[in-house]
């Protein structure tokens, strides 16, 4: 069975820490050459490496189409700063920004800030949901046509189209409006790893793309159905979300492996199910799962980025393209266009025009 839905592919470009931009640029360009939807760059305050959002901003002008999705901590950061930085990544990349919202549960990270003690994941994920919600409201707080430059009246903006958000959450409040005008995508793409039940509930409500883990097409389909059911409870139709299966991949040195398969190697925490095999084996798995309608796509984390990403693009992706299962070029410019996600209207614009019509 084919689903009729386009296949989406993304790849992680992190790995052992590197501090020079060309390393990351090379990987992002490789992924861009394979017409992948986006690259992710994982991050944490507690492990060696540069700030992920900064790295992706650094390579944005040197890339053209690939979506750029850094991991951003919502526990020890200011939601206002986070929303400004992600919106700015969207401006400097001309509509290719996303962010993976994540939490920090450990005492080790808390001590780096000395501001608050470590807290249980459930509370932190509720807070992450609030950060995503406040961020989306800030991105909406300037309507698209707020800047008017009306020389006759001397007004640069139409103040009726720039809104306070007055967000009041359990963990923080934000008055708004944003400093950064509404970004090119309206709202940059929000990605959340929905592996745990707590994170999945938040993802279903606030994320555009949800990463899940599965070891079989049936399990993937069930996870996808679960995400969509939870999303529907918040009034979100399936067309507003994409569910990608997260796989850590070790493509070895051969085209195919004697015994390709899932979880046949060491499990890798945090990066999905472990797949070991050749690039052809991976293409086979993706084809089968995709044809079974188990997922909207895959987020692949190469175990050895420089080697495995090259094999993903030139082996796996090339084969999927040859089978007409994956596009050969980016038909659009923005990450939302790659993902087939509509550009959302500002909620404040909708509310205002609804009010005007009454």
């Amino acid at each position, binding site marked *: 069975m084919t689903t009729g839905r386009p296949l989406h592919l993304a790849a992680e470009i992190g790995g052992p820490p590197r501090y020079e931009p060309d390393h990351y640029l090379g990987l992002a360009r490789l992924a861009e050459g394979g017409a992948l939807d986006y690259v992710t760059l994982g991050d944490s305050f507690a492990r060696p*490496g540069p700030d992920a959002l900064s790295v992706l901003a650094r390579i944005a*002008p040197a890339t053209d189409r690939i979506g750029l999705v850094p991991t951003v901590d919502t526990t*020890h950061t200011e939601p206002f*700063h986070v929303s*400004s930085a992600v*919106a700015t990544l969207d401006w400097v990349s001309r509509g290719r920004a996303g962010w993976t919202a994540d939490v920090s549960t450990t005492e080790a990270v808390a001590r780096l800030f000395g501001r608050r003690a470590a807290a249980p994941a459930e509370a932190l994920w509720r807070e992450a949901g609030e950060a995503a919600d406040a961020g989306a409201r800030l991105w909406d707080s300037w309507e698209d046509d707020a800047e008017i430059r009306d020389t006759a009246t001397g007004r640069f903006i139409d103040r009726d189209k720039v809104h306070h958000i007055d967000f009041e959450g359990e963990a923080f409040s934000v008055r708004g409006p944003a400093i*950064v005008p509404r970004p090119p995508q309206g709202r940059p793409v929000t990605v959340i790893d929905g592996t745990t039940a707590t994170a999945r509930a938040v993802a279903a409500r606030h994320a555009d793309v949800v990463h899940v883990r599965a070891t079989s097409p049936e399990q993937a389909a069930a996870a996808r159905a679960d995400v969509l059911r939870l999303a529907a409870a918040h009034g979100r139709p399936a067309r507003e979300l994409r569910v990608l299966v997260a796989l850590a991949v070790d493509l070895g040195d051969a085209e195919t492996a004697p015994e390709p398969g899932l979880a046949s190697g060491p499990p890798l925490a945090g990066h999905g199910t472990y797949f070991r095999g050749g690039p052809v084996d991976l293409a086979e798995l993706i084809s089968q799962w995709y044809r079974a309608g188990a997922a909207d796509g895959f987020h692949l984390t190469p175990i050895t980025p420089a080697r495995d990403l090259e094999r993903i693009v030139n082996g796996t992706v090339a084969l999927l393209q040859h089978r007409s299962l994956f596009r050969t070029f980016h038909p659009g410019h923005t990450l939302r266009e790659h993902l087939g996600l509509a550009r959302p209207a500002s909620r404040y614009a909708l509310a205002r025009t609804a009010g005007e019509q009454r």
Partner: protein
Amino acid sequence: MHLAAHFPGVNSTTVWSDPRSGSQIDFASFEHLARTAERGKFDFFFLAEGLRLREYDGRVHDLDVVGRPESLTVLNALAAVTDRLGLAATVNATFNEPYELARRFATLDHLSGGRAAWNVVTSSDAFTGENFRRGGFLDRADRYTRAAEFVATARELWDSWTPDGTPRPVAHRGQHFDISGEFTLPRSPQGHPVVIQAGDSDEGREFAASAADVIFTRHGTLEAGRTFYADVKGRLAAYGRGPDDLKIMPGVRAVVADTDEEAQEHAAGIRRLQVSPQNAILALEQVWGRDLSSYDPDGPFPAIDPEPDSEFAQGRVRIADPFAVAARWRALSEEKGLSIRETVIETTTRQSFVGSPETVAAEMTDFVDQRAADGFILVPHLTPGGLDDFVDRVVPLLQERGAFRSEYTGSTLRTHLGLAEPVWKG
């Protein structure tokens, strides 16, 4: 002489009504201005910061250019399209945490090959605090003690890896911060990013003398500049620093035309556009703290007194003594026979170099020779082409005079500024 370019993003600096005025937010504008600055061999490119849109009487201010991107993200992107230009971001030490900010600046320094600078500013008002977890509770008196400890903590983090790249734990316990753990980046190409301090208060000058590499200031005349210069440089010895360890760079505008007369006319025209009739009344309302919209900007000053603690004053720049300012403005208006708008133009005009390229080059050189400044941060009035004239017409003259470099001699901002790399204190 050192030169920097200020991106003239927002507020009343830019003349957005000029047909040549472009976007203050598209990356192309930043790229154009930064590339122009680098073509002119400038030391660095400078971005200001805003954390709350200005408001008057509970409504968003709508008369000036407003809306800007987040500085560090823009500078990382600019690192991709420039090679030598220093990249300076203004980031508030009140609404941030040392670990996160030290990490972001160290990242910029690594990703730009040693071109990062941090302009440390402070803020304490509850109005800005409404956008943050921290809120607005910080006492004014604590602003600089927090900023000083903030910078010191960042430097501990920047020094925490050994020169051979081994992370070592940091433990800092002070009045404002209590942090421990390992930093995530090795020492950056400049050792530490350059630290800039902006502001003119006594505490600000002392903080700059103790901890900054550059001070971003403004003063109206050569004489005021010389006094400031002598005062700040005189404070360095107490911290074991030499006079060359802190560069003094006032923000200035330069208006260039074929002749001095033409340039003067042009500069006056720009000021009239910057201080529109509406903006003149607004400037008055800032001081008076009340609604003055019924007054004629081309007429005389209001007879009523300021009302500084009114609700109306919420969200605006605080004026320390509005009665004194009002009295000064009134006196100036009466003495010279100026209208409200003309008075505002006169009292808000900053240090300017106006004239033919020869005149501007000579005056700027004179300022440096007479120890009124070590260089300048140019604030153009147009985005993004406002630096083109200066770079094309004045910079070559400065280079001919031997007052300014013709080529970069190094690749880091510290090299451009003639600042030594900080000694590693592991």
